[in-house]
């Protein structure tokens, strides 16, 4: 009972920090030859007076459209609205030149509960590709819709979907005289934004734990930087470091047992790894120059970091034991804030082109950098856990906004808040 009330309290806390400021997503560049797909509005089988609080079909369609790889059919153009296979006449959908069709129904399942079923069809073959049933509650309806979008995406593209994930980011409101900062998390479509910390002092560099349950971040509360780790679901947090000087750039190891970071306690910023269980620190990189922004390779054996030891900031790689330091970037005079793609074959980074700061991807085999964005102050790139998109911070109409670009640079979208500057985005891993 005590445990239950604890859960209730933390739930209430989460609810009370819900913020209305939704991120609005706008697709700015789409892909030619996107796959046409029809997502029929899910049929409500219960009392018409109490429909479910979310429009499942609309959430799925929006996810698929946002990926850039699908072109969704407008509801108004649909010739029929089937909710079972027997109601489907594939000729309708062939006439509308749709490759695929998603249908579903949702029915009440006890107080506050719902039962959902959906099916995905290949219109030309006239057959079902996948079909699933789910039981859920009102609170998790959006999550289920994102999960269905992931299943559709994976079935049709061969790549695991990343719609049922989240993003963490920092919002700055207020003015230089009275700053107001908050660290927020939201669903990957910008909904369900929650403030998990707010402060009048700088907040920066959020980093997810590999299970998506914790965030490490830097907070300047009391005027000086400290690294904190906070449980996302309970709000419980703990100060990890507050050494003299810089306490920055935290990064969880892929197994979650270690935290890499930049500390300047021994003179100038170097890369350290902390064993989180034993709170033991080990210096991995020691050099008179600036070393910061460590990022783990997916196998946990190497770190990327930014160093200006060569006269300008460039990306280096080091083994976690401290050996084999290797400079990776030679193109462009400014390269920083690098992180590995989930498959470890490429890295994303900030690269300066002329006087513009843009997001690039570097193929680790060839060493060549492809510039993906066209802003002038783009920063903080972070891969989606399936490697398909990169979220980053940019400026639009004088405001800091988030944007996402597909790894091949063909699809672009912008995520904006009505007010305030948004920055420092980081995409969550898959939830475990």
């Amino acid at each position: 009972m005590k445990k239950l009330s604890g859960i209730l309290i933390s739930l209430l806390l989460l609810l009370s920090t819900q913020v209305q400021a939704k991120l609005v997503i706008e697709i700015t560049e789409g892909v030619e030859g996107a796959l046409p797909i029809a997502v029929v509005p899910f049929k409500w089988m219960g009392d018409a007076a109490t429909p479910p609080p979310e429009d499942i079909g609309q959430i799925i369609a929006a996810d698929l459209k946002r990926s850039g790889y699908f072109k969704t059919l407008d509801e108004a153009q649909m010739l029929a609205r089937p909710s079972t296979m027997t109601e489907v006449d594939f000729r309708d959908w062939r006439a509308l030149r749709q490759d695929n069709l998603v249908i579903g129904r949702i029915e009440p399942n006890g107080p506050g509960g719902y039962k959902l079923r959906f099916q995905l069809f290949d219109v030309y073959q006239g057959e079902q590709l996948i079909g699933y049933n789910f039981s859920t509650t009102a609170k998790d309806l959006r999550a289920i819709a994102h999960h269905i979008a992931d299943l559709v995406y994976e079935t049709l593209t061969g790549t695991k979907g990343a719609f049922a994930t989240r993003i963490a980011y920092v919002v700055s409101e207020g003015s230089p005289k009275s700053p107001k900062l908050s660290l927020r998390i939201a669903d990957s479509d910008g909904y369900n934004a929650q403030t998990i910390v707010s402060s009048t002092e700088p907040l920066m560099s959020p980093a997810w734990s590999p299970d998506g349950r914790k965030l490490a971040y830097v907070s300047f509360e009391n005027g000086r930087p400290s690294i904190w780790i906070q449980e996302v679901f309970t709000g419980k947090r703990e100060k990890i470091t507050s050494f003299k000087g810089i306490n920055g750039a935290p990064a969880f190891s892929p197994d979650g047992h270690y935290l890499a970071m930049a500390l300047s306690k021994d003179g100038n910023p170097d890369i350290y790894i902390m064993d989180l269980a034993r709170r033991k620190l080990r210096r991995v990189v020691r050099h008179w120059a600036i070393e910061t922004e460590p990022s783990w390779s997916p196998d946990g054996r190497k770190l990327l970091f930014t160093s200006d030891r060569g006269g300008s900031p460039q990306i280096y790689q080091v083994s976690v034991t401290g050996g084999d330091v290797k400079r990776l970037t030679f193109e462009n005079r400014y390269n920083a804030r690098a992180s590995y793609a989930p498959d470890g074959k490429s890295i994303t980074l900030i690269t300066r082109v002329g006087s513009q700061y843009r997001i690039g991807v570097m193929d680790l085999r060839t060493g060549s950098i492809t510039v993906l964005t066209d802003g002038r102050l783009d920063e903080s790139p972070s891969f989606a856990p399936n490697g398909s998109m990169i979220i980053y911070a940019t400026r639009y109409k004088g405001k800091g906004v988030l944007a996402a670009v597909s790894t091949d640079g063909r699809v672009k979208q912008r995520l904006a808040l009505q007010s305030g500057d948004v920055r420092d985005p980081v995409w969550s891993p898959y939830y475990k």
Partner: protein
Amino acid sequence: MKKTMFLLLTLIFSMALLSGCSSTGGPQDEEGAGTEMGGGSGTNTSAAGGGGAWTGSPLEDPNSPLYEKVVYFDFDTAEIRPEYVDTLRAHAEYLVNTPSARLVIEGHCDERGSREYNIALGERRADSVKRFLEAEGVSPVQLETVSYGEERPVDLGHNEEAWAKNRRAELVYQ
């Protein structure tokens, strides 16, 4: 007269800052304090305008080189520009002669590039000022540094003019 006006404004401003710092109440609280301070500063003004000597802390005397507490930097560098040498020497002398004085040197950057790299660059700027002061004989015990990177801009613009104002080290006496 112009100078007097300037002095008056500075006084009101710095007092307002002081009252702002200690105030724990709401906006009405601060407003009340501000009015009172404004009245107080009037007395000081006539004294200074009449050619009297500055009686407050030399750190607040607009005629003292100690009044300057911001040092600006060029892009992506922590080198102290020659025009700030005199200002920094004056602060060094003050610190040497006032062993109880404590100074926090804040390092700041413009918004371009990576936030964490800018934290490192801001620290380098603060350290550069700290080393200068130590070379002038200031005890390390009196000095502390903190870097805010690009997180605390004074100018929110996105052009060279704003960036130049944001690339700075601020001397904050405790």
